[in-house]
C-alpha cells in the first residue's frame, strides 16, 4: 500500500513497516499448515491401517484405528479455526506492506502480483479448509458414522491436492519475505540505505 494511505492509520510503525517487531501472519501459518497437513496425513494412515499393522507392532505402538481418525478430525477443526486469524493477520500486514517496486521474484513476478495472488489464494485456501472441515465432520458424524473407514477416497485426494496448492501459495509468501523483504527489518534498513547497527540496535 502506498505510504500516504498507510499514514492515514496514524499508527507508529517501526523500520519493518509494522507497529510491532515480528510479523504475526507467518507464525499463524505454522499452525494452519501443520494442523491441516498432519490432519489429512492421519486420515491417510487410518485408511491404510490394515497394511500398517505390522509396522506399529514392530514399533510396539498400540494403535486403535478410530483414534487415528480422531486426529484427522480434530486437527482439521483446529486448522480451520486458526486460519481465520491467519488470513486476518495476513491482510492487516499486507495492507501495511511497501515492497520495493522494481525487483522480481524467482518466479519472475513483481511484488504487487505476488501479494495479490497470495492474498486471493489465502482467501481461497481458507474457504477450502473450512469446506474440508465440514466435509470431514459430515463423514465422521453422518455418512461414515459406523464404517471402519471414516473418510472417503475423494476426501483424501482433495486433501493432497490442497496441500499442493498450499505449497505454491506458501512459496509466494516465502518470496514476499525473502525476495522482496516485506516487513523485514534488516532488508528495509538496507533498502533505505540506513546503518544496520543503529537500526537493529534499538529495534529489538
Amino acid at each position: 500500500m502506498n505510504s500516504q494511505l498507510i499514514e492515514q492509520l496514524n499508527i507508529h510503525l517501526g523500520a519493518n513497516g509494522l507497529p510491532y517487531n515480528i510479523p504475526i501472519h507467518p507464525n499463524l501459518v505454522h499452525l494452519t499448515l501443520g494442523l491441516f497437513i498432519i490432519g489429512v496425513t492421519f486420515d491417510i494412515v487410518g485408511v491404510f491401517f490394515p497394511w500398517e499393522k505390522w509396522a506399529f507392532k514392530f514399533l510396539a505402538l498400540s494403535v486403535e484405528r478410530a483414534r487415528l481418525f480422531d486426529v484427522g478430525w480434530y486437527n482439521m477443526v483446529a486448522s480451520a479455526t486458526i486460519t481465520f486469524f491467519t488470513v486476518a493477520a495476513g491482510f492487516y500486514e499486507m495492507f501495511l506492506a511497501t515492497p520495493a517496486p522494481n525487483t522480481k521474484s524467482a518466479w519472475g513476478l513483481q511484488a504487487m502480483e505476488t501479494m495479490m495472488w497470495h492474498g486471493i489464494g489465502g482467501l481461497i485456501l481458507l474457504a477450502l479448509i473450512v469446506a474440508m472441515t465440514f466435509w470431514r465432520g459430515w463423514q465422521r458424524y453422518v455418512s461414515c458414522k459406523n464404517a471402519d473407514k471414516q473418510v472417503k477416497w475423494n476426501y483424501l485426494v482433495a486433501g493432497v491436492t490442497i496441500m499442493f496448492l498450499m505449497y505454491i501459495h506458501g512459496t509466494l509468501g516465502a518470496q514476499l519475505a525473502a525476495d522482496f523483504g516485506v516487513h523485514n527489518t534488516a532488508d528495509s534498513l538496507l533498502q533505505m540505505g540506513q546503518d544496520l547497527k543503529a537500526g537493529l540496535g534499538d529495534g529489538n
Partner: protein
Amino acid sequence: MLKHLTILNDHNLPYPDTIHPIVVHFVIAMVLFAVCCDLIGYIAGKTEFFEVSWWNMFVATVAIFVAIIFGQFEAGLAKPYDLAKSALNYHTLIGWSLSGLIAAITAWRYVLRSRDPQKLPFHYVAVGLLLVGLVGVQVYLGDQLVWVYGLHTVPVVEAVKEGILP
C-alpha cells in the same frame, strides 16, 4: 550431480527457498495443539483428546530432528553477521535442547499411555505448559533471525557478499 548441489542461489542456498521454517510447522503446531488437547482432556474430562495429543507429540518428536538437520545446514550457509550471531547461538542451543526435551516428554507419554491411556497426571500437563513457553522463546528467536536480521533474504545475502554488514 554433486556440482549442482554446490551452486548457491541469491538466497545462498542450493535449493530455491529455506526448508527449515517449513519443517518447524510440524514441531510448533503439533506441540501447541498437543498441549491444548491435554488441557481439554484434563480440565473438561474429555479423555479421547489424550490420544490426539499423544499422536501430535509423536509427530513433533520425529519432525524436530528433521528440523535440526535442515536448521544446521541452513545456519551453516547463512553467513550470520556479527549482530545476528547471538540470536543464532541461542536458537541453536535451545533447538538441540528441545530435541532432547520433546523426545523425553514423548517417551514419558508413551509409558503413561501404556499404563492407562485415559489418565494423565498433573505433572505431565504442567511440563507441557513449560514446553509451550520454551517453544515460544525458540519461535521468537527464529523469527528474529528471519524477520529482524533477514538471514537468507536477498538484500541481506547481497550485503553480506559486499561485506557491508556489521
